[in-house]
């Protein structure tokens, strides 16, 4: 081969590779990332990427940089469009700093009630992110990404209400498959919110990493989840998930999946249902899910 032809072949391969990557649409999926003691879920649909919480940044350990970004990269995510933060605690909001640094075009969305909260203010200052750049969410919000519909309910937050109880509720619905996120909201807020419309979902992210302050039986009856996702750190000092919660979930007949034991949990939408895929690493054995 002449040098010219080799160079042409080289350029063609490169262009082909970049082209193939640019024009392929990533599959619709919902992925709960194993970020340690915190929450981060990634929803991809129609070329858009939405994060619900961004992982912890605590005790000098930034899961946003160490875990979330490398995983997003491995997933082939080229841009993040929206980061919805349930509440401004470091195990939910902390990792957003690194994600925003890597994807500066991403918008941060938070409940309006937390606008003046000291932790929010401190984080925004640290990230040099003007409050005007944040999408402050009102009591009821609805978003749409192509066929996916997102409903957000922000419980009232103010004096006398804990930050946990100010966590937003988010229901994601695509082609009839639904998932619900509740941040760290407590049982009382769950009960109040359960009266506000349809919260039934096939996938539920268990509130407050499986703490006994969340996941009331009434709430589980409302959601009726097929899968309950507990996002917690391995060997965490809080003892999450609590034994009582595991029992409550078991009684509700839902399948309990834990990020500390199984790593990332991935769901695809097929025939109007979330179908789990990927490696299961429970009890140290690698098997492929057939669900």
């Amino acid at each position, binding site marked *: 081969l002449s040098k010219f032809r080799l160079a042409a*072949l080289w350029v063609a391969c490169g262009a082909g*590779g970049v082209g193939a990557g640019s024009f392929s649409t990533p599959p619709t999926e919902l992925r709960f990332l194993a*970020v340690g003691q915190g929450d981060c879920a990634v929803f991809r649909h129609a070329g858009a990427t939405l994060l619900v919480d961004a992982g912890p940044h605590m005790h000098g*350990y930034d899961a946003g940089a*160490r875990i979330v970004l490398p995983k997003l990269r*491995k997933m082939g995510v*080229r841009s993040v469009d929206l980061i919805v933060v349930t509440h401004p605690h470091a195990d939910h909001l902390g990792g957003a700093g690194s994600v925003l640094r890597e994807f500066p075009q991403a918008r941060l969305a938070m409940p309006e009630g937390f606008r003046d909260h000291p932790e929010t203010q401190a984080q925004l200052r640290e990230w040099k992110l003007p409050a005007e750049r944040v999408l402050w969410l009102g009591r009821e919000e609805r978003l749409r990404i192509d066929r996916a519909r997102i409903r957000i309910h922000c419980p009232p937050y103010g004096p006398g209400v804990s930050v946990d109880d100010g966590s937003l509720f988010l229901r994601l619905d695509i082609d009839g498959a639904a998932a619900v996120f509740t941040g760290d909201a407590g049982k009382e807020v769950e009960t109040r919110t359960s009266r506000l419309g349809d919260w039934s979902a096939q996938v539920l992210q268990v509130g407050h990493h499986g703490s006994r302050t969340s996941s009331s039986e009434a709430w589980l009856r409302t959601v009726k989840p097929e899968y309950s996702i507990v996002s917690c750190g*391995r060997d965490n000092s809080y003892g999450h998930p609590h034994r009582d919660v595991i029992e409550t979930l078991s009684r509700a007949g839902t399948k309990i999946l834990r990020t500390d034991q199984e790593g990332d949990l991935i769901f695809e939408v097929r025939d109007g249902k979330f179908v789990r895929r990927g490696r299961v690493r429970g009890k140290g054995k690698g098997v492929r899910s057939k669900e």
Partner: protein
Amino acid sequence: MSVEELRGRPLLGLCAGLIVGLTAPTHPWHLLLLLPIFMLYRRVDARLGAAAVMVVGVLIAPTIPKSIMEREFLRGEGRIASVPKLYPEFQTCHLDFEGRRFTLTAPLEPPLSLGDRVRLAAVARPLREGSEPFLLRHSVVGRVRLEGPTTLEVVRPGPLPYRLADRFRRAFVRACGETLPAPVAAMVDAMCFDVDSMLDPETRQLLQRTGTAHIVSASGLHVLIFAGAAGWLMMLLPIPRGGQLGLLGLVLILYAAAAGFNPPVLRAVMMAYVIGTAYLVRREPDLLSALALAAILYLLFKPSGVFDLGFMLSSITVAAFGLFLSRPGDVPRRAAQLVGHRVKSIAGASLVATIATAPLLGYAFGQVSVVSVLANLLVVPVVPVIMTGALGSFLVMPISPSVGVGGMTVLVAPLVGYLTAMLEACGSPEWAAVRVPAFNAYWIPLFYGLMLTIWRPRVVQV
């Protein structure tokens, strides 16, 4: 491309066969790569050799263990399995305990060294989610952290050379800490002995954005500088050339131990041995064959190194130097021409290294520096001066403290200041590094395959 040039280097075929074998258990289709190796090497003995090392590779291929999932209490004796990394308040290393490997985080006292037999009573915890993939690849299944009054005791010290090297490194780090401002000391520690734990995140970011991270990660460059300085000192000794080389080899082993036995240093020291041996037996050393032999020895010694990014980057850079750098011509005598000659050679080496490592860096870190050639041109010339200046000042300190401290503060500190200023100037602009979108890892061998096809045989003879 001259195929004969490759055929004349059977060690390259053996090395490729070993890599195929080591990676085949996790990526079985890699076995197909034996076909091009067989097509290239037509001699039966070369083919048999490649096939044999491939089988050896499969047999010793690293297996990825599983992390422990619950706390375990460890009581008994274990062995320190890596050179400890030093932090301001603690040290971390690998601990082999009853057939499993853990990371051990312990107070600075007692000082630990590779090969020490220790007795401990401690709780082992599961690996954290973020570090798990990396640590499992190094066979680590859990973490042990000792805090407060130690429950750790050295019952039998490791080999003397390792202890000597460790003591030298700790004394050097202490001396730098006492004589230099903290950020300068952090940079000098990292440059001389790979003690990079004190570098702040901003500096790390700048090093990455300017493509100069290699200066703070002990590698071939450092071994070359160290060997050059030590070799010059040995020439002053009234002993035969062979003896000087033997002594230099010993000193290099001690340096590798002090620098943490990291893969690039080991690779460089092994290459130095191969090239030194060639010199002793009056054979003309060949860079590519020396690299292949060093890689084979290293991978037989540590099979998991085949997945080590540092080893890959270091080997690929040296291979690219061997393939693409022009043979150095006569060194000009006039000062201006000499400067021009040096600038040209550093820029050439930097350009080759940048192009050769770009796919791997882009894949691993998602960014590639575009100011790498300029930054290396500005930074690399002062690295030998800083290294030799700092090591020389440290060695002089026991004899003449004022001269030692003077060397550190008058020579080393300003040069590190210059280096930091250059890094900031080159790495601060937004465009200093370009983001690389995620891509499939199999583009990387394709890139290197194509790179090989445009090779013109101009191999550097050392």
